[in-house]
């Protein structure tokens, strides 16, 4: 089966965010960029699916700047067969643009299954997988925490508020991957060496204009300074008093 994995280069989750001079984007100075953590689950699931079937290919695609080659190379070292960079020098924050661009590219390659991380940890949009599926006419299950493929059908489990849903899903499909789906592998030394010989194709991205324009990006207001109420159980009466009288939550 031919599998496509969509991934993205994002700031590491322990990065402090600073706003750039334009007031509309982040200042990347000193920020470490990594493969979006949820995309690691997507790549791992794609590799496992290829291994289970013993046939097929895993192609990783990203829409991003040329620096994304670092993250794509990581996915090749993990075991993907091919990587494609749809090159843009702009930060594409709008899922409308991302989904249309990626769907148009996916339509040009053989593909029966698409894995995505459930969200990219920059814009936190949570939109791409089900947008893609709709544009491609594929089935889709989002935020999947467990997946099995038997006889050409997927059984997917996902957490919803207060319950777990178990779905039967046909192919072709887009699966959005949540933490817990699998334990992503590390690239082996052999994998890192092999990655150097694997194809990493670069294409100019045809990004459609966004449906939403950015007015500003700002830091959230700082929380007002808190109060230390003391040590140990002696501080409890003061806490109860504060929660009751000041905050009116008790």
């Amino acid at each position, binding site marked *: 089966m031919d599998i496509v994995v969509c991934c993205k280069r994002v700031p590491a989750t322990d990065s402090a965010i600073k706003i750039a001079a334009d007031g509309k984007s982040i200042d990347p100075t000193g920020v470490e960029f990594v493969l979006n953590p949820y995309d690691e689950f997507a790549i791992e699931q794609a590799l496992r699916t290829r291994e289970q079937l013993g046939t097929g290919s895993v192609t990783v695609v990203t829409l991003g700047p040329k620096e994304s080659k670092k993250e794509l190379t990581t996915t090749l070292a993990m075991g993907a067969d091919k990587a494609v960079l749809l090159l843009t020098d702009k930060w594409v924050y709008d899922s409308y643009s991302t989904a249309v661009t990626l769907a148009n590219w996916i339509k040009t390659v053989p593909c029966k299954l698409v894995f995505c991380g459930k969200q990219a940890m920059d814009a*936190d949009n949570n939109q791409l997988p089900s947008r893609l599926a709709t544009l491609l006419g594929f089935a889709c299950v989002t935020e999947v925490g467990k997946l099995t493929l038997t006889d050409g059908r997927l059984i997917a489990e996902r957490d919803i*508020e207060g*319950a777990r*849903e178990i779905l039967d899903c046909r192919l072709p499909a887009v699966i959005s991957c949540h*933490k817990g789906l699998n334990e992503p592998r590390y690239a082996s030394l052999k994998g890192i060496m092999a990655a150097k010989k694997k194809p990493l194709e670069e294409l100019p991205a045809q990004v459609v204009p966004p449906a*939403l324009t950015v007015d500003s990006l*700002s830091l959230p207001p700082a929380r007002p300074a808190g109060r230390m109420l003391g040590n140990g*159980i002696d501080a409890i009466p003061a806490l109860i008093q504060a*929660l009751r009288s000041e905050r009116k939550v008790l």
Partner: protein
Amino acid sequence: MSNIVVVAEVRAGKLKRPALEAVSAALALAQKTGGKVIALVIGSGLAAATAELQRSGAHKVVAVDAPGFANFSGDAWAKVVAEQCRQDGACAAFMPHTAMGKDLLPRVAALLDTGLITDVTALSYDGGKFHAQKPIYAGKALLAVTAQKAPFLATLRPNNFEVNGSGNAEVQQLTPAPGELLSVVKEIQAAAADRVPLSEAKVVVTGGRGLKEPQHFKLIEDLAAAFGPGVAAVGSSRAVVDAGWRPHSEQVGQTGKVVSPTLYFAIGVSGAIQHLAGMRTARTIVAINKDPEAPIFKVADFGIVGDAFEVVPALTKAIKDALAHK
């Protein structure tokens, strides 16, 4: 093109509170667009939810109530929502930012070839355009946008918009067939009935590595239970989830859930930047930690330096007493 459609989420026959929040938010904007608010509810056995929506302040309730819609299906529901938006000439459609909202509204956006902003915390309409704000980088920054395409779609963060509508709306009942489904819910395994979902809880009690052993989460569960059934949810730091002590569904923070409860307890949680990102919009934050230098105290409204094993049981008792003598 001035009406606003609100997709009202119902689970197991029960209207979700964030649906009422979305109706109220839509009512405030409809005053400016000059249109009506249409609450669209989809499912099976919707009499109670429909009646509740009638009183929500929405101008009209459309109930798609048919056995074929008993379980959520993104494919089928997206077509219903998109069709309703077309019929009503909707300029906007809103839904809560829940598992269902995150799955459904992007599909509707794709069908209507339009934009969608998710996890919205502020909305406005002026100059003939919708404006919205959402936290990005898990709340480390706020993004403000203007919609350039119509209709404007948004999922709204739960616990963030007031419920303040009232009225007696007309109801339109529809019973279409769902058509072909690409994915089908086979089973729903419900959690214990008295458990409130983390993202909807008014009170969240989170435990971290400071509890030392997984069995000590009993302290956290007892404190949550002190608030009574269905009020407080247990959260976990990433460290204890990665250690396998607690399920990922409880994780608060950047690779887990973002929560904004009225009251948040961080117990034995150091306060890594990823954790702070997931809870900093809580109304009131209480931190209990042995280390007076723990970063969690920088965002806490109230801090107690102390051993969780001493402080938490005493606090649980004190809260029970306080709630019993209101």
